[in-house]
């Protein structure tokens, strides 16, 4: 279990380095998928099953999908991948930096924290209660967040209007 959590955290760090090192948004989004999946696994090992489900559904299935096709509107026809030298050396640099920082600090691994309040012990879990509260007592925040998401879609489409003829376009 400890080994599994360690592997997942390693995946999070490598994925974050990949996101930071990539000039192309496609491969950076791939790194984000890796980070989210590994992080989700780690959260699950710490007891937050509902949170991990929400992370997959909303973050990966909602926001990252919208991000990917918004990026595709002003796409780079020949994106720079991870295997190219310029990107690989940055990624190696970031991993060395984080490894060095990890050696210098002695933090206890947070494997004994549990996500949520006794998440697997009671019938009423905090996170699920929060979601139902958002639909009930939190009416205006639900409507305004949904409206903000819709407007974000319109904003992305307006800003990238014109694809290869507009100002937001790939230039090599």
């Amino acid at each position, binding site marked *: 279990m400890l080994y599994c959590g360690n592997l997942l955290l390693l995946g999070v760090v490598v994925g974050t380095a990949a996101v930071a090192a990539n000039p192309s948004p496609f491969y950076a989004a791939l790194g984000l998928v890796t980070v989210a999946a590994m992080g989700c696994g780690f959260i699950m090992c710490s007891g937050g099953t509902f949170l991990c489900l929400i992370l997959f559904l909303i973050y990966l299935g909602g926001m990252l999908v919208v991000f990917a096709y918004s990026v595709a509107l002003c796409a780079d026809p020949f994106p720079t991948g991870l295997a190219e030298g310029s990107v690989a050396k940055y990624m190696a640099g970031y991993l060395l930096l984080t490894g060095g920082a990890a050696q210098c600090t002695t933090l206890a691994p947070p494997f004994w924290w549990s996500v949520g309040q006794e998440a697997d012990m009671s019938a009423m879990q905090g996170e699920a209660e929060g979601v139902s509260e958002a639909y009930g007592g939190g009416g205006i925040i639900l409507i305004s967040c949904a409206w*903000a998401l819709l407007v974000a879609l*319109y904003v992305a489409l307006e*800003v990238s209007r*014109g694809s290869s003829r507009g*100002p937001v376009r790939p230039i090599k």
Partner: protein
Amino acid sequence: MSPYVLVLLLFTLGLGTTLAFVSSHWLLAWVGLEINTLAILPLMVRNHHPRAVEAATKYFLIQAGGAAVLLFAGVTNAWLTGQWGIQQATSPIFIGVISIALALKLGLAPLHSWMPEVFQGLDLNTGLVLATWQKLAPLALLFQIQPANSPLLIFLGLASTLIGGWGGLNQTQLRKILAYSSIAQLGWVVLVVQFSPSLATLAVLVYIVAAAATFIILKLVKSTNINMLAVSWAKSPALVAMAPLVFLSLAGLPPLTGFMPKWLIIEELSKQGLGPAATLAVLTALLSLYYYLRITYAMTLTMFPNNFSGVPPWRLRPLQLTFPLACLVTGTISVLPLTPAAIALVAL
């Protein structure tokens, strides 16, 4: 831009500010601020010019950074104290972090560097929205956090008046001058917000009326730098004759309206025992007076040599509504005698 999308974006702008005004929870306030940031981006890139896109990118990064710091501070406060109320925040560290986040969103010195560049990349209408409407939501939050005895806010205020005055001296582009003027005016607001939020409200209202008047005047005479101001008298002589009064009202000269907030703020600072701060604020206002005078000189007080094609053009009916401009210019020039009524209104 499609009119449906335009209406949607303007409605969302209104919704964001309204949410920030009505909320007593940090999360809802953050949602309102982010909605404002999102909705103005397509308005900034409406003409799809690379300079406008650059300005929109800079604006987005700055505002998103400020909103992120605000969110983190709110979450940390909830973690430490267990409650999310905006007006129940009392820890001075928390108030300091929130003040810095809001200063970044407002463009107060020393977090002001983005303002001139963003204003320069926009057309005057979008600059008007940025200088007036977008300031309301962060100011509403700043007024509510009830800072008490905070030297940070005095520092932000004095630095803003100083840098707003000093930085505008070397500018010939009018949009950058208006950006520095916005920095200086908001510096006055932040100086007094911890002593008298009603005076700060008055200062904000007078600034919004005056700034709106200046942006609309410049739009009507189609001038974006001082050279273009030199031939603006021919486009609309009556307007250009009244424009100096609007600019000098921004500078805070009596008997114009702009004197009212400055006078009351100096009085309040003196009552609080901050005489040196009041003196410094007045002295730095002299710096901004200089560039307002330069604009006045180029626009109205001097007739530059011109060739025959500079002869007055056909003055056709303007496509823009001028009634709002008439109200704003009247408010900017002649409301000083109503000072007691204004004080009574904002003290409610």
